[in-house]
């Protein structure tokens, strides 16, 4: 008999979105019991690594319309505009709430919250806490969550399968990593907040934990994954390690130059090379365009050879030591430690690196999925406000706005629902989920986990990288299909019950292969170039056929089935994107 734990709401993932959801439930409906599951302790969640900041209208000369337009244009018109509208209005409120909870936002001389410019913005609206915004937000949320006794944390529980029946979600099975025991978390409503899946790619800013578990879980339970072909490359990661150098460094005035010390972005329709100081520089163009420009420079042979591959230079020297120390202390520290380069004296070598999955679990503006009682928020979800390319600093705000929304709605659902369901049936499903893990655990196979994982990484980089073609994507899809069947024949060598990270990595790999297939098949079917999805064989944006969201539905061992849904357009008709210094 499986150990069963009853709560009103189960939240899977205790990063920014999960914690924000938990706090929302605990303070709006203190009677509800909340089980907060995470495969890591909350402060290890990858929200911690976000650097630059969180967007929300703050200045008098800014407006909600500006934030709306920047977001929609940045997303190449693939955003649902009703969701964006809600998002931009909630943003300043959520950021203010964070301030009340103690987030150490950087300040102006007058003691107001300071804002900095970020890529794709007309007016600066990025709230920041030096260059450790995600870190401070996560710790503020975690520490604030300790105030609420209603939040019961289950740290280091790896969630396995959603338990759903008849179109409604009733809980999740999870592995207690320290004992190896699988438990059934029965709940009236469930929120997934497990973050992205950058680890599908070999070269990423994402931490080891970002393996798309929540996406895969919802996907296997029948919820489509939306717009999975859109994977953001951040233009400035450190070669070798993929460590993120924040866009804030360009917001503060950093310049991108090629091996000839030439600001090459001017050649890619991103604006004139205005001298510093300037607000709307070409360096602050959208991330997709900057990453693509790097690829083009690489083709032309203008990139710089480093022992860790090709790079361009991010030059901060003109900012001076004092400003670098005040605004970008972590960038300096990271560059010195991991690159041996002090940005005060030398330019930092950087290159594009996989950063963010715009796509994710298909949710509506209420953070609800098509399974009743199942909600999703944060990077694992696709609302969608990010469209084809996320605007820098919208994601930290997104996890607050929609984390809060998911919490409120899940609480509401949990307190109203009066389901009639056969408990024995649910328990049996939970047991099957546990048996599946046991089978994996005991299987004697010949494939290794690191081997398959490296192959998957290579396939995705080669087939679904910055630029894609029909043949590269077809290859990727075919190879991933083979990989999926080979995955059934893996061997686990660790037979311990306690912190069996071999088993956890196997389960994560299973998730990643499913997510990777959704990405590759979605990308193959989108025969246009839009935002971060660039096809060398379909170079134009095609609004006639593809101003639509891709919905990939799980089909077992077969490739997912692909459907489309129209984008919600309220007030901004698709137009040409104008970038950085080109904009007014």
């Amino acid at each position, binding site marked *: 008999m499986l150990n069963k734990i009853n709560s009103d709401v189960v939240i899977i993932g205790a990063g920014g979105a999960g914690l924000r959801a938990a706090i929302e439930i605990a303070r709006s409906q203190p009677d509800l019991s909340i089980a907060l599951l995470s495969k890591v302790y909350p402060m290890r969640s990858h929200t911690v690594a976000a650097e630059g900041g969180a967007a929300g209208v703050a200045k008098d000369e800014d407006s909600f319309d500006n934030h709306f337009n920047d977001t929609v244009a940045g997303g190449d018109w693939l955003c649902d505009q009703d969701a964006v509208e809600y998002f931009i209005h909630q943003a300043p409120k959520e950021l203010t709430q964070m301030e009340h909870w103690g987030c150490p936002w950087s300040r102006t001389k007058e003691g107001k919250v300071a804002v900095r410019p970020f890529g794709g913005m007309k007016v600066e609206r990025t709230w920041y806490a030096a260059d450790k915004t995600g870190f401070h937000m996560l710790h503020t949320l975690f520490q604030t969550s300790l105030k609420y006794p209603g939040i019961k944390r289950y740290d280091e529980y790896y969630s396995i399968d959603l338990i759903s029946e008849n179109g409604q979600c009733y809980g999740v099975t999870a592995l207690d990593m*320290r*004992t*190896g*025991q*699988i438990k059934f978390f029965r709940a009236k409503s469930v929120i997934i907040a497990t973050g992205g899946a950058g680890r599908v790619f070999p070269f990423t800013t994402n931490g080891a934990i970002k393996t798309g578990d929540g996406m895969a879980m919802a996907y296997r339970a029948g919820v489509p994954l939306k717009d999975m072909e859109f994977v953001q490359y951040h233009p400035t990661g450190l070669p070798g390690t993929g460590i993120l150098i924040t866009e804030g460094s360009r917001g503060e005035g950093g310049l991108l130059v090629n091996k000839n010390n030439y600001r090459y972005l001017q050649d890619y329709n991103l604006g004139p090379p205005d001298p510093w100081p300037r607000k709307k520089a070409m360096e602050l163009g959208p991330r997709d365009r900057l990453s693509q420009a790097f690829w083009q420079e690489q083709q032309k042979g203008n990139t710089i050879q480093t022992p860790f591959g090709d790079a361009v230079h991010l030059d901060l020297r003109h900012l001076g030591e004092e400003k670098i120390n005040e605004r970008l202390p972590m960038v300096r520290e990271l560059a010195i430690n991991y690159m041996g380069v002090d940005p005060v004296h030398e330019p930092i070598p950087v290159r594009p690196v996989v950063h963010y999955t715009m796509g994710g679990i298909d949710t509506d503006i209420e953070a609800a999925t098509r399974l009743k009682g199942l909600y999703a928020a944060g990077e694992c979800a696709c609302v969608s406000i990010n469209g084809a390319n996320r605007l820098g600093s919208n994601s930290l705000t997104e996890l607050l706005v929609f984390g809060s929304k998911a919490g409120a709605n899940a609480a509401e659902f949990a307190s109203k629902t009066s389901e009639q369901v056969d408990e024995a049936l649910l328990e049996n499903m939970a047991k099957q989920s546990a048996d599946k893990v*046991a089978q994996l655990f005991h299987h004697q196979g010949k494939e290794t986990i690191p081997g398959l994982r490296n192959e998957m990484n290579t396939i995705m980089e080669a087939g679904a990288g910055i630029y894609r073609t029909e043949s590269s994507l077809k290859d990727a899809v075919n190879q991933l299909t083979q990989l999926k069947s080979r995955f059934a024949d893996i061997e686990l060598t660790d037979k311990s*019950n*306690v912190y069996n990270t071999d088993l956890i990595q196997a389960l994560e790999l299973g998730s990643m292969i499913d997510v990777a297939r959704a990405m590759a098949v979605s990308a193959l079917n989108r025969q246009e170039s839009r935002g971060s999805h660039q096809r060398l064989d379909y170079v134009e944006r095609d609004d006639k056929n593809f101003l639509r969201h891709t919905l990939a539905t799980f089909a077992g061992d077969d490739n997912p089935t692909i459907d489309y849904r129209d984008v919600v357009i309220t007030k901004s008709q698709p137009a040409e994107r104008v970038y950085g210094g080109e904009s007014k």
Partner: protein
Amino acid sequence: MKLTNGNYVRPPARYSWWLRQGRYFRYMMRELSSLFVGIFSIIMICGLYQLSQGEAQFTAFTSSLWNNFWWLSVITFLFVTYHSYSWFIVTPKAMPLRFSGKKVAPWIIIGAHMILWLICSIFIWFIFTNGGAQ
């Protein structure tokens, strides 16, 4: 799968931990200096007591201190000086000064203490050797 709670607790090195690392050893020497602070305090108190008992006792005390126990005084001096040094080195932690919103650099706080130490020492020496010369 079976339930396990078999955490292993390493026995701490209760008596010898401070020999394992330089930083622990330096700390223990700083702590041990208190023994010598105590010894010298008691010597001084004894001296004062002998002083109150009359000239003969006091002279016996000083000659014993200078002739028989000078070696103890040397050790005491070394430990107590180390105590002073190690105490001033950590003052910026206990007293983080701010001047018009900016943190005063630790070396300034340490330096100020060292200078104060020097001034106090010279002052005592000077007062004693010159004072009472009336």
